[in-house]
């Protein structure tokens, strides 16, 4: 039996491990402590206690109706597998139009028809949300189009510059454009 088999020379990594493994354990326990503020922030965001979304960008008039819009997260679109890059927005209908508005759609660029009006807002009219695809080739001067349809069948549209709706998305698009 060779000597090396009995007592392998401790490697630098091995020495580090022997010396620090208990400390590393304690670090694992510190992780939730570090994330606790973020956890409570997120709980408040999901519950709607901290507002419509992380960044509200104003009230948009859509025909006779109006709605407040917000970015759910103040961040660039997230890659969601085969769906591509997605971005979530929240909206709240004005108190008087809740009984009149049937559905609200959101999309990048002007919809050609009601059939392609974009993502449907889902949830309570006090705080509804939708997630829409943001193609990486979207032009920085693109607009976010809101299409609202009433229970009586009337349709109204409005738009807001993407730059105003989501500066984080705009910055991300510029970055995409810079790539070869």
């Amino acid at each position: 039996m060779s000597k090396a088999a009995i007592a392998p020379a401790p490697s630098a990594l091995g020495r580090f491990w022997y010396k620090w493994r208990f400390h590393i354990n304690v670090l694992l326990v510190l992780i939730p402590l570090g994330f606790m503020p973020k956890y409570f922030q997120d709980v408040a965001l999901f519950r709607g206690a901290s507002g419509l979304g992380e960044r509200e960008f104003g009230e948009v008039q859509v025909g006779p109706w109006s709605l407040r819009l917000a970015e759910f997260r103040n961040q660039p679109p997230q890659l969601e597998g085969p769906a591509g890059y997605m971005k979530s927005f929240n909206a709240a209908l004005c108190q008087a139009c809740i009984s009149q508005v049937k559905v609200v759609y959101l999309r990048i660029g002007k919809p050609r028809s009601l059939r392609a009006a974009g993502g449907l807002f889902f949830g309570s009219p006090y705080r509804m949300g939708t997630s829409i695809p943001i193609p990486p080739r979207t032009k920085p001067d693109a607009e976010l189009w809101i299409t609202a349809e009433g229970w009586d069948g009337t349709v109204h549209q409005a738009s807001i510059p993407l730059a105003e709706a989501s500066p984080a998305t705009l910055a991300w698009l510029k970055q995409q454009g810079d790539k070869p």
Partner: protein
Amino acid sequence: MRANDPANMSKKSRSRLWFLVHSWLALPVWFFLLIICVTGTLATVSQEIVWLANPDVRASKPSDDAQRLSFGQVLEAINRAEPELIVQSIGRPDEDHFALTARVSYPDGSSPLLYVNPYSGAIQGVSPEFDFRQFTRALHGWWLVPFTNGYSWGWYLVSLMGLPMLLSLITGLVVYKKFWKGFFSPRLRVGQGARIFWGDFHRLSGIWSIWFIAVISITGVWFLIQAILGDTHVSISTEGVPPVVAREEVPLAPSAAEVPRISLDAAVLKATDIIPGLEPSFVSLPGYAYGHYSVWGRGWYPLMFQSASINPYNGDIDSTRLLSDRSGLEFVTESMRPLHTGDFGGLWVKLLWFVFGLLLSMMVLSGLLIWTKRTAQATVAAVKRPARAAKPVPIVATREISESRP
């Protein structure tokens, strides 16, 4: 020299090797694993802890002959009490001593839970900002690491612990010769020193928890697989896309209030008609104009839910998800979560999970105590033994291992 060759390894030294593997397995993660076990144990009874702490969540019976209200009656009661609220869903907890929980939306955009008396429909309280149940689950389940894109790395960290736990169980049973004898002649020596006591405790609680450790570690490993499948966008689900009410089925009307809709109770009735044996325990109201009423409940198999989506305008059942729709694989994978949490058979199953969770936490702790008292020495001895046959023990080996003792 023979001892180093696995093929020729004697039975004794092979079992010693297993023993060392067992002893070292959980070591670098022991404290983490202990906290995971303790938080998991708490999470099994978190709902009960909230019940003890907060009177709002209790379902007090106004009189002995009081009858439970239907979902529709509860909805009506909430709407009457707070007309500006929008009710999104109503859940009936498994145990009768809990109030109903209604997810509602307030005009200010917040969406808390309301605790509603199941007999009178009275709103007993609003869920506090700090949700103890959700917090213990988040702590246990993903170590509070946020889900930014896909599964949180905390989820991976925690579910990865299923592997050392499973390996500890297997190696533990291999090294514990004739462990089944412990069932008939249990031994717990008190008063012969801490090392003897903790050793007996570790073995005794171990054999009585074989089933529980297996359940927790296998389901834990499933959570790991689930995250890997999720993050690589591999789906094993046979469930189709959620149904949407066809555009032409949504009637025109001067305003939302004048749109003809079937009642919530009518929808629940439709669901129980089409799914025999369904016990509705959760209903959700249409989330938008193209949404459905959804009714969820258990059937004969307590680990899985069945559901039906009912068109609110014409009352058609647009989709169902039944036990018989699930593939064999889904029966296994969908059963994993309730098996892990123990919330499928009321209070007694939860308490059973709680007790064995405590036992498992104590096993991790006792394993650690034993390790500090013995394993380091055993390792020194195991390294020394073959060495003695050949050459004198190199000093470096002894020092290296004894240094590793805490």
